[in-house]
């Protein structure tokens, strides 16, 4: 389905969801490039209500047949909803459609947050360079706020099964090792060595069961020139678990963007201090090391599975090849670095 066919069908769906609205139209629908796990479009929804014209900018995210990350869209939707209006800035979720009748594939619609940037590359240019300290403080403070949140009070345990504190690492490592087993197109001696080490040196039990964003990194939030963050995006891999898991993902060296700084912004120790202050939790160095190495393995599993989706023909979009070619070797080098073998 091209954009021309999509717009009227989306407008018809919106009209059904807005019974008091009339003249519902979808305008300026255009695809946003880069999304590997969802097909993402921006558009303007216009309608009349109470005799007045209305307009709202929105984002449509549609599941492709095979994506880089296979996730439950309801989990993602509820994670956004849980944090809307909190200290963790997220876009407002509007509709979730799990059926395929309306647009052939399941989808969600959210309010668009406009006027900010997400691309990491801009951060290494003026005027953004001057805002790195502020951005880093905001980034790891927000991540700490996610860790501080009570997933049971937010009702997220209804859609995300909570593990036992001592079982967080077993579940996550087992899940991503299974992905590697199923999807690797060639042997991965470095990742396999890391997995053996992780199993032989388990981390302590989680201090609490918290919300884990699952992909909190530079590039997955909207920022401005002052270093303020206006939206945390890409909650596809959200789940409940050890909050240190998110900290470890943010410290995965592939997200340093060749700058040898956490997220390309500040030294690891500075990032960890912001996170500890906001979360109220302790980042035990050995546990952080374990979760950082785990996240290197998780990253490799994601890059490998994107290659697998392309090889098997389920998704031949070039975005599926880019991480496989562009991140697999850097991820191996990140593993070596974290294991002190580089």
């Amino acid at each position, binding site marked *: 389905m091209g954009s021309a066919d999509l717009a009227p069908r989306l407008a018809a769906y919106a009209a059904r969801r807005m019974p008091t609205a009339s003249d519902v139209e979808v305008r300026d629908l255009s695809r946003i490039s880069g999304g590997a796990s969802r097909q993402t479009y921006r558009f303007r929804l216009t309608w009349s209500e109470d005799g007045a014209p209305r307009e709202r900018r929105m984002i449509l995210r549609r599941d492709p047949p095979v994506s880089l990350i296979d996730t439950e869209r309801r989990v993602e939707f509820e994670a956004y909803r849980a944090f809307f209006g909190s200290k963790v800035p997220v876009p407002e979720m509007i509709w979730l459609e799990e059926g395929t009748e309306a647009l052939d594939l399941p989808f969600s619609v959210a309010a668009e947050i406009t006027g900010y940037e997400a691309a990491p590359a801009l951060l290494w240019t003026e005027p953004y360079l001057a805002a790195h300290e502020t951005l880093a403080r905001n980034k790891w403070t927000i991540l700490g706020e996610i860790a501080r949140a009570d997933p049971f009070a937010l009702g997220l345990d209804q859609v995300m099964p909570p593990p036992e504190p001592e079982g967080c690492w077993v579940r996550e490592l087992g899940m991503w090792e299974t992905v590697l087993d199923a999807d690797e197109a*060639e042997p991965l001696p470095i990742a396999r060595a890391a997995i053996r080490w992780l199993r032989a040196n388990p981390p302590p039990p989680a201090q609490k069961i918290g919300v884990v964003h699952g992909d909190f990194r530079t590039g997955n939030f909207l920022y401005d020139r002052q270093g303020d963050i206006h939206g945390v995006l890409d909650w596809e891999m959200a789940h409940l678990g050890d909050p240190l898991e998110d900290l470890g993902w943010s410290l995965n060296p592939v997200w340093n963007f060749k700058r040898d700084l956490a997220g390309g912004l500040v030294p690891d120790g500075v990032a960890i201090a912001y996170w500890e202050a906001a979360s109220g939790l302790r980042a035990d160095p050995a546990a952080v090391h374990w979760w950082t190495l785990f996240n290197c393995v998780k990253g490799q599993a994601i890059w490998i599975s994107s290659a697998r989706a392309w090889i098997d023909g389920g998704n031949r979009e070039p975005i599926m090849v880019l991480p496989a070619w562009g991140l697999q*070797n850097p991820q191996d080098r990140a593993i070596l670095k974290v294991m002190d073998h580089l």
Partner: protein
Amino acid sequence: MKPDIPAVLAELAGLVARNAAPGLDPAERAGALSLSAALLGMAAEAWDGAAQRLVEENRALRALLADAGDRTGPDAGLAGAKDEDLKISVLSATNARLRAGLIALHAVVEGEDSPEARALESRIWQELRLSTERRRMSSALA
């Protein structure tokens, strides 16, 4: 590199041809072509050294497996062969068998408590580090 470069290039040829058609959404066209350009750049960078990298790595892996003696178990036969067919697909398939043998050897060595095992383990980590040096690309994303 997986997916294999020839398969990706063939797919990109079709994608570029489709994007030459009039009437496409400019944003979709721009996204498809910019990603294609990035992949073409990576393929170009990997192309010249691909056979050299595989031959060099296969030789190093065979030497490691040969020096491991009985520890290689059923993979012992891998150590004695040579790369006669220099097609990249054939070299890659051999490389995959050798790297699978290295994984098995690495796990065996980790379980041994002897100076010889530690020395062999150190050589395995050195080879793994070198394997990432051989695969480095200036166009990598990180």
